[in-house]
């Protein structure tokens, strides 16, 4: 994957940070505004793909390490299933934080309201866990596919 022209690279330098922040915004506000873990993770993964396209595989390998991503992926999923396990006192996926005043536990105003971050109980935690898992999973897939292009091509003309 060769790198692209100077213009694209400068725009990427500028836009890269904002895309990632926007992705995390979608993940964190999953229970208030449209979006959630999957959509936010995909937005952040698109930032990785942008970096890969504009700078080519060799430079991106220094920034995005495949091993770290697969570690964060396993951690994200383990966090997700541990949060589900914590509700095991009552049932497996029980929302034990909702409306209990503790972390993320404020009771929401029924009907139309401006939206309070501190509500939703277990849902924001699961959003963050799934967002982490999706962004690193798609990142790993994008990196491997870029690396694999050379891997299969080299074999073919050798």
């Amino acid at each position: 994957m060769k790198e692209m022209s100077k213009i694209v690279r400068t725009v990427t330098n500028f836009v890269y940070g904002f895309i990632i922040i926007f992705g995390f915004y979608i993940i964190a506000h999953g229970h208030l505004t449209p979006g959630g873990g999957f959509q936010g993770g995909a937005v952040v993964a698109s930032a990785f793909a942008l970096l890969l396209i504009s700078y080519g595989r060799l430079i991106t390998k220094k920034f995005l390490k495949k091993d770290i991503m697969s570690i964060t992926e396993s951690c994200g999923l383990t966090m997700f299933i541990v949060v589900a396990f914590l509700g095991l006192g009552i049932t497996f996926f029980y929302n034990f934080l909702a409306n209990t005043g503790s972390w993320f536990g404020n009771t929401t105003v029924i009907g139309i309201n401006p939206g309070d971050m501190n509500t939703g109980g277990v849902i924001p935690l699961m959003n963050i866990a799934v967002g982490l898992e999706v962004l690193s999973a798609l990142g790993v897939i994008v990196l491997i596919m870029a690396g694999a292009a050379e891997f299969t091509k080299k074999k073919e003309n050798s």
Partner: protein
Amino acid sequence: MNLSNHIPILIIAIPLLAAFLVPLIGRINKKATGILTTLALSVSLILTIALAVKILTVGPQVYVFGATSPSLTLPSGLKFPIRIIFEVDAMSIFMGLITAIVSFLGAIYSLAFMKNDSGLEKYYSLLLLLTVGMFGMVFTGDMFNFFVFLEISSIASVALISFRGTDLGEPAEAGFKYMVVSSISALLVLFAVGIFYGQYDVLNIAAIASVMKYSQLDKIALGLLVPVLAMKAGAVPMHMWTPDAYSEAPAPITMILVVASQASLYALFRVVFSLYNISLNALTVGWIIIIFGLLSMFIGVTMAIIQKDIKRLMAYHAISQTGYMLLGVGVGLAVLANPAALQKYGITAMEGGIFHIMNHAMYKGLLFLTAGALFFSTGTRDLNKMGGLAHYMKYTTIFFIIGAAAIAGLPPFNGFASKLLIYESVYRFNPLLSIIAMVVSILTLASFVKVFHSAFLGPKLPQFKEVKEVPRSMIFAMAALSCIIIFFGLFPDLIVKNLVHPAVMSLIEQLQYTGTVLGGM
């Protein structure tokens, strides 16, 4: 907070947690991954046995996700469930037991079989995920959840089939074929779920069954589900993927794949018996399934005789044995409408068919493990190159004889018990079918005698001088399977009376299935 009513979910959640941790632990030290996998699968095996005892004594268990109590299926003031519900009745736990036994022995077998393969922690993680997919398919009571777990088991088995594809060409090609087949079938199952949801706005199997008006659309959904699930189970008209997938996958994975296709066979019975039951005209659908069965039996065995690759031969036998199950349960379904015939021979036909699922999983698994042992020590799967291996590999020869005798239906082994049930009941339904079944059984015996002769008997070949017996963990897995086969063969009525009969009853009585969820009982 007693854990006893959380067992259905613990059987799935513990291997799932282990599957997520195995890649992490694999970075620290490689050996721990195999041990962690075997540990997690042994825990779920013990829990499955405990759940089986509880279900056969008390009755179907229900587990609701996220509700204030595990058995609160209907939230206040509603007459249908809204959350995802695991409904484990006698038939589901029967399949759950097979899954647990086979995956546990597969993990032990692959401790030694896969020792010199690279990327082991990925292999064990995929094995755990395949087991979780099968458990989920078998325990779930929600149509969309069944689709999700069908997809998990398909993707995990594709990744495992093409596990050795990095350096060989054939596994990649077999994986591609299997992937295309399973994604089409999963998507058409999703289309049928969309049809049910579009009409009745409910996703739970028991709720759909109670609200079903068998409209024109439901006939289409049935017309989609039956062929698609039969394709996933490897019935004949759409069996092209089975020989490649079974012969290219590593031996323990092939054993588990056989049970994965039995799980979609279970889903076919669940759709036909619990979702539609009497509302579909049982005779025609029964005959369709019988025709699938006959085709599978006959074409499977005729193709098997001409094979020279030992695993492809056994793959075709797997197709023909699936034909027996379809025949048995198809006859049971065909007479579902008139209770007199059902009592006379319908129930025994279904008992034969469903008991055959358990027996087939055991002896087919044993045969694939022996083929794996041959591949492990000689490095080849081609029957013409093998010969005189009985001299070096005594245990594998004994296990092969047990497996071959069981598949051919010789008396002291479990194959005979279930085939006898099928013969005598199908004879009363239609003599011609049972004669075809007997002929196929004889052809099966003939092809396995050929395999035994060319692989094991004959003089000591020079190139196999340094061949030695397979490591202990492979022998333990094969020995465990042979003990189960012999135990089932000697006491078949013990198994039929208190394991297979409740399973058949739970399939036939739709009200028992819907009652446990909707509280009607």
